[in-house]
């Protein structure tokens, strides 16, 4: 009886509120949307009605756009209701919603103030994605499942949201990649916006490869409908220690202004329209955090660490091959090493081969192909270019890869099988003959382009051991060099034999240079009117010249010696006398005819130099 009275009481209060409040709100247009039915099967349509109450200005209505749903406006209706003598006009837009796939769709509000609605689309029986038919339950599965609060879920105080962080391991290693799952539960109608992506609290952790689009589902928790958003990510820790770990998500929720006990009816309806209709609420930004968990982080052991360990932690296997299996000397080959498994692939690295005899090696490059969206599982491929410098069948060294296995808690080094390759001599450097080349081809197969060639020539004996010109071959260059050396030696020998006449010529050239110098001094003294310098220069020049002729030292050529040896040359005797006079007596010799004496000295000097 009490229950019946309780159910009748609230509709009565609602009707009374409508009668009282409607006139007051007539000037304020109010828009809401409904969808009927809220659950359909793929292939059916639902009716989405947008109602505008009041006769005020029509608010801007935005037709929702939801991926997987098709919206078609099928009509407009206008009603006038008379409630308690007051006219209340309303207009409605009727929209047909046709789903194109199965799933749970949230249709956003048509105005910024209106609430979203949810449409559940079930796949038809036998359709891919449809739940398998159960012999016990012929009915389709319920939209929302689960009722009690699951483990690890801690709702906010108003029960509007929760965050749950699922970490599969409790003891991890520094640098290890740990897949985690962050689940955000949003109570329908209470959360207005998601203000950011989930993040971890504290500076000791990094969250990598967070999935862009969270997985979406719905669930009943504690009797309330929740929309669940689930992100996958990879957690890594930067230093050892024991740290509290939790995730947080920024949200905007609606906080009811009335006490919770007074809004029990709103929650009973479960429809956002009625929740908002009966309970006034205000938006508030909050950070929802998951309950903190203690994470123990250990450092990698220093003992037993392989020299080629680069920080890879996980479980891996390797395989290698070389391509092509046959090549010529100088051809580039590619040595490939594949590291397959799960772990921190960003630390999976290898230098592959380095300094291999008869091989030219280059730095490898790597590519990573992930098999999960987190980049935790996959295959890292290292490709190293190699060039062989020697022909023959060659086996390359074994490739190895070291990592730390967190399950066995020790370092592991795995090896590949040594790749082998056959290297042929380079065709450009070999001394193949035309017959050998022809025999190496496919018998009978001749390139059509060869039909226009001139015929083969008769083979002759090889004429050159090298194609390098002889000018660049030292042994050839020795011959003209020796020849040039012999010519130079002969030239020198001949020159030595013809040396006396040359000496004579050289002496004449020296005498001529001296004569020019003496005559120059005399002319300068004559221009200056200095007879002492004039006759001194003349005497010195004649002394040098006569000394050569008489084979005596120049200083022994005096006036007496000249008088004794050249008794017939009065002019030269007079010149020596004048020279002595000008030097010792200092007599006035201004009346001297410089030109005459210059001519006389020039004549004597020239005679002696050409003698």
């Amino acid at each position, binding site marked *: 009886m009490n229950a019946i009275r309780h159910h009748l009481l609230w509709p009565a209060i609602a009707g009374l509120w409508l009668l009282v409040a409607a006139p007051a709100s007539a000037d304020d247009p109010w828009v809401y949307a409904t969808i009927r039915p809220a659950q359909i099967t793929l292939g059916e349509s639902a009716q989405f009605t947008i109602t505008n109450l009041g006769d005020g200005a029509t608010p801007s209505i935005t037709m929702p756009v939801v991926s997987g749903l098709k919206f078609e406006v099928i009509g407009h209706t206008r009603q006038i209701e008379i409630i308690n003598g007051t006219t209340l006009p309303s207009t409605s837009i009727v929209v047909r919603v046709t789903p194109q796939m199965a799933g749970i769709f949230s249709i956003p509000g048509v105005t910024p103030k209106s609430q979203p609605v949810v449409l559940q689309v079930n796949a038809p029986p036998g359709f891919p994605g449809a739940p398998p038919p159960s012999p016990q339950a012929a009915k389709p599965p319920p939209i929302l499942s689960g009722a009690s609060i699951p483990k690890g879920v801690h709702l906010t105080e108003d029960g509007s949201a929760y965050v749950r962080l699922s970490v599969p391991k409790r003891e991890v290693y520094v640098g290890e990649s740990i897949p985690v799952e962050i689940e955000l539960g949003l109570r329908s109608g209470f959360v207005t916006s998601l203000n950011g992506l989930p993040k971890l609290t504290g500076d000791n952790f990094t969250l990598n490869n967070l999935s862009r689009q969270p997985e979406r589902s719905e669930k009943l928790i504690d009797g309330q409908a929740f929309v669940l958003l689930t992100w996958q990510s990879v957690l890594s820790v930067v230093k050892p220690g024991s740290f509290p770990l939790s995730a947080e998500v920024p949200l905007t929720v609606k906080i009811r202004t009335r006490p919770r006990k007074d809004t029990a009816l709103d929650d009973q309806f479960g429809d956002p329209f009625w929740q908002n209709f009966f309970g006034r609420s205000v938006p508030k930004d909050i950070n929802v955090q998951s309950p903190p968990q203690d994470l123990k982080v250990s450092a990698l052991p220093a003992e037993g660490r392989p020299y080629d360990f680069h920080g890879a932690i996980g479980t891996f296997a390797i395989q290698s091959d070389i391509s092509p299996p046959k090549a010529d*000397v*100088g*051809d*580039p080959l590619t040595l490939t090493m594949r590291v397959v498994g799960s772990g921190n692939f960003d630390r999976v690295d290898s230098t592959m081969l380095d300094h291999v005899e008869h091989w*030219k090696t*280059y730095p490898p*490059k790597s590519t990573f192909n992930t098999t999960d969206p987190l980049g935790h599982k996959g295959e890292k491929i290292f490709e190293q*270019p190699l*060039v062989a*410098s020697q022909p023959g069948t060659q086996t390359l060294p074994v490739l190895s890869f070291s990592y730390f296995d967190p399950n066995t808690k020790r370092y592991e080094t795995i090896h590949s099988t040594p790749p082998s390759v056959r290297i042929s001599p380079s065709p*450009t*450097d070999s001394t*193949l*003959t*035309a*017959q050998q*080349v*022809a025999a190496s*081809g496919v018998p009978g*197969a*001749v*390139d059509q*382009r*060869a039909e*226009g*060639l*001139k*015929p*083969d*020539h*008769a*083979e*002759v*004996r*090889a*004429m*050159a*051991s*090298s*194609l*390098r*010109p*002889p*000018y*660049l071959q030292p*042994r*050839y260059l*020795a*011959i*003209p060099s*020796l*020849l*040039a050396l*012999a*010519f130079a030696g*002969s*030239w020198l020998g*001949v*020159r030595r034999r*013809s040396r006396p006449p040359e000496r004579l010529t050289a002496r004449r050239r020296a005498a001529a240079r001296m004569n020019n110098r003496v005559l120059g001094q005399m002319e300068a003294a004559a221009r200056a009117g200095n007879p002492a310098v004039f006759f001194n220069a003349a005497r010195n020049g004649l002394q040098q010249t006569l000394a050569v002729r008489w084979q005596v030292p120049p200083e022994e050529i005096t006036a007496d010696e000249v008088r004794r040896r050249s008794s017939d040359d009065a002019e030269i005797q007079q010149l020596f006398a004048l020279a002595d006079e000008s030097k010792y007596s200092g007599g006035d010799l201004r009346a001297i005819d410089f030109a005459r004496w210059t001519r006389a000295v020039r004549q004597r000097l020239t005679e002696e130099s050409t003698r």
Partner: protein
Amino acid sequence: MKRGAALSVLVLNLLVGAGPIHAQSAQAGYSAAGLYNLGNAYMRQGKPGMAVLNYERANLLSANDPDIDANLSYVRTSLHLPTRSHSAFERLARCASPIALFWIGVIGLAIVSASTLAARLSFGHIWLRRVAGVVGISMLSLSACNAVALWPLLHEGVVITGATPARVSPVPMGDSLFLLPEAETVHITAEHEGFFLVQTNAGRTGWVSRANVAPVVPRKQ
């Protein structure tokens, strides 16, 4: 006397050292006909790059062989590559094999030396000396011209594989700048660790692996 004997021994040794040139050529040497036939064999196998390489090498030894020129032109035309023609200077400077012209130069040097010495010694026969000098200088000039004409060929190479990538750096994983067609002749300007820096006739430059380009005059590894 002793010095003369020592010089004679030295000359003898050098000549004996030069002797194996002919001995080697009898064993494993090059002949224009052999290289020409090798080019034909490669062309029949559909390897125009190797064919052009061997024709070019045959052309080194026998510059004015019309068959070699004809086949070179034919292959290049069939591959839509530009053909090359020899200038009058090239034809004159390469009128014989490089070895023959080298020996002609040596003889010319000997004649010039002898005539110069004779003039110094006042040997007489002035007209004979003058004619000998002119002949010697001509022979020496011909040999020098041959060396000048051969010089560019020392830096030429032939692309021996199809669609050869010319890279921006001398490493196998270097970015490709452009592709070189098979049998194109390129100018080799530098070498670095198994790669040649080549320049095409159009002036484009890039690094090409030694496996893809073969120098016309083989280089030591």
